[in-house]
């Protein structure tokens, strides 16, 4: 590192290095075509090449990489879920995240803050105890704490929440972290590109060619591409892609909104979530408070944002932190969350040979980016899904084997 810096000091020109090659037109065929250049699609391309030596891969992104939900989320990474399968899966992701800046040689601003899920009612306390026990059982560091410990970690918090909803305790999850979300997409893109995968922006998949129940190619706005394996990693666009191949799923799209305040001096170290008040908040490395709430209440396929959302959210923020009343909200936005009825993803093979699904990431998929990329790469390379994601298979609905993740995923994403 010091040598590289020294070289720069002596040079007159400092061109910004490109993260991945800009190819003119896609080739006639690829071993694997990945639809969607979000974190998930790019991570799958990276692990296909790195773990399985499959690098004749094209990632097709209709906009720009990371411009979907990857660049819109509130960047919370945690593994304090409710089901043992969920906890194991997300824990594997957290472990990769912890070393990811090093591995991708890019500072992802991965910052472990500790994560409090506040409980304002006895029934919420019961869910916290349940989650803590499941987490401990699987080896994940979570425990129930009382108001004293919350006050110590965040003295600015009004524990009575303006008398509206006194805090009884919380689930404390030590590994809870935030990261720079677009950096994750860029890091995986650079990694995949260095192994020979090709990334195409402004390239939209218009239809998928399926013959005799097998994938044989995709039609794009840049021509036809032959391939026997297609991974759909398009989050909020999933129903449009599954419609192309005639596949039914339970996925429906609801907007999820977020907003940030003007930057402040650092004062909030931890990540706080309140299910009852429908609010969660952390402070970014830039000093902004990053805030979000629960899902919009009805189906819309757009990224419009609403005044209702900021009004509702900020009034609850003021219940928790009355001193913020003069702080300005400077940006708000939305993403399209691909929701499943059991708040768990849909991953793996489908009834169509060569068509793989990585979807149903709803409001919780950023934290899963590394492990979903890794397990989807495994699924494609072996044409068989690893045990870790068996619970998340599409056929669970037909088998009535839904997961029970709602209690851990509906507000804290």
């Amino acid at each position, binding site marked *: 590192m010091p040598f590289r810096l020294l070289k720069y000091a002596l040079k007159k020109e400092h061109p910004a290095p490109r993260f991945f090659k800009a190819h003119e037109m896609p080739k006639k065929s690829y071993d694997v075509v990945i639809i969607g250049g979000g974190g998930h699609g790019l991570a799958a391309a990276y692990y296909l090449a790195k773990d399985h030596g499959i690098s004749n891969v094209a990632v097709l992104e209709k906009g720009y990489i990371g411009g979907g939900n990857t660049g819109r989320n509130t960047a919370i990474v945690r593994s304090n879920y409710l089901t043992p399968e969920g906890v194991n899966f997300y824990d594997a992701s957290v472990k990769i995240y912890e070393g990811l800046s090093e591995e991708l040689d890019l500072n992802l601003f991965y910052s472990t803050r500790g994560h409090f899920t506040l409980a304002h009612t006895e029934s919420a306390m019961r869910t916290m105890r349940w989650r803590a026990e499941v987490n401990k059982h699987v080896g994940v560091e979570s425990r129930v704490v009382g108001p004293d410990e919350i006050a110590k970690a965040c003295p600015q918090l009004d524990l009575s929440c303006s008398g509206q909803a006194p805090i009884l305790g919380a689930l404390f999850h030590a590994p809870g972290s935030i990261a720079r979300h677009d950096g994750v997409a860029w890091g995986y893109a650079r990694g995949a590109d260095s192994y020979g995968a090709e990334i195409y922006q402004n390239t939209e998949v218009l239809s998928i060619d399926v013959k005799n129940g097998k994938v044989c190619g995709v039609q794009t706005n840049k021509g036809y591409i032959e391939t026997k394996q297609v991974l759909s990693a398009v989050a909020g666009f999933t129903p*449009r892609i*599954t419609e192309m191949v005639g596949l039914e799923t*339970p996925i429906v799209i609801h907007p999820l909104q977020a907003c940030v305040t003007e930057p402040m001096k650092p004062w909030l170290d931890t990540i706080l979530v309140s299910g009852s008040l429908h609010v969660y908040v952390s402070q970014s490395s830039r000093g902004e408070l990053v805030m979000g709430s629960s899902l919009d209440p009805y189906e*819309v396929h757009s990224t419009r944002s609403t005044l209702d959302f900021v009004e509702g959210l900020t009034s609850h923020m003021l219940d928790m932190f009355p001193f913020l009343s003069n702080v300005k909200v400077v940006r708000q936005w939305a993403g399209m969350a691909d929701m499943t009825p059991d708040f768990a993803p849909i991953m793996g093979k489908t009834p169509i040979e060569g068509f793989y699904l990585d979807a149903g990431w709803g409001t919780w998929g950023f934290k899963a980016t590394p492990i979903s990329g890794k397990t989807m790469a495994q699924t494609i390379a072996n044409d068989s899904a690893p045990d870790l994601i068996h619970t998340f298979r599409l056929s669970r609905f*037909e088998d009535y084997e839904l997961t029970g993740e709602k209690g851990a995923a509906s507000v804290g994403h």
Partner: protein
Amino acid sequence: MKLLTCPINGTRPLSEFIFGGEYRQAPDQNTCSDAEWAAYVHNRQGAPGDKKEWWYHSPSGTWFIAERNTQTDKVARTYLLADAKKVVKESK
């Protein structure tokens, strides 16, 4: 403020309404297969477009149908289910 028209109570703020999901026809439970029933229970038409949906006006307890485009969020019309047949005739 976004507004929606309840067929009984007229145009009201959206916050008075609850979304009830797409209006769907259940398969005949006596004759359909297990797979058809599971598909009915779980699967949804998730792609964007013009849809017929259930909505509920909560202060008055009124369930009704709204025809809405799920991409533009524009509501074409709302009516009580009992009046659905009339609406179909009018639009022909």
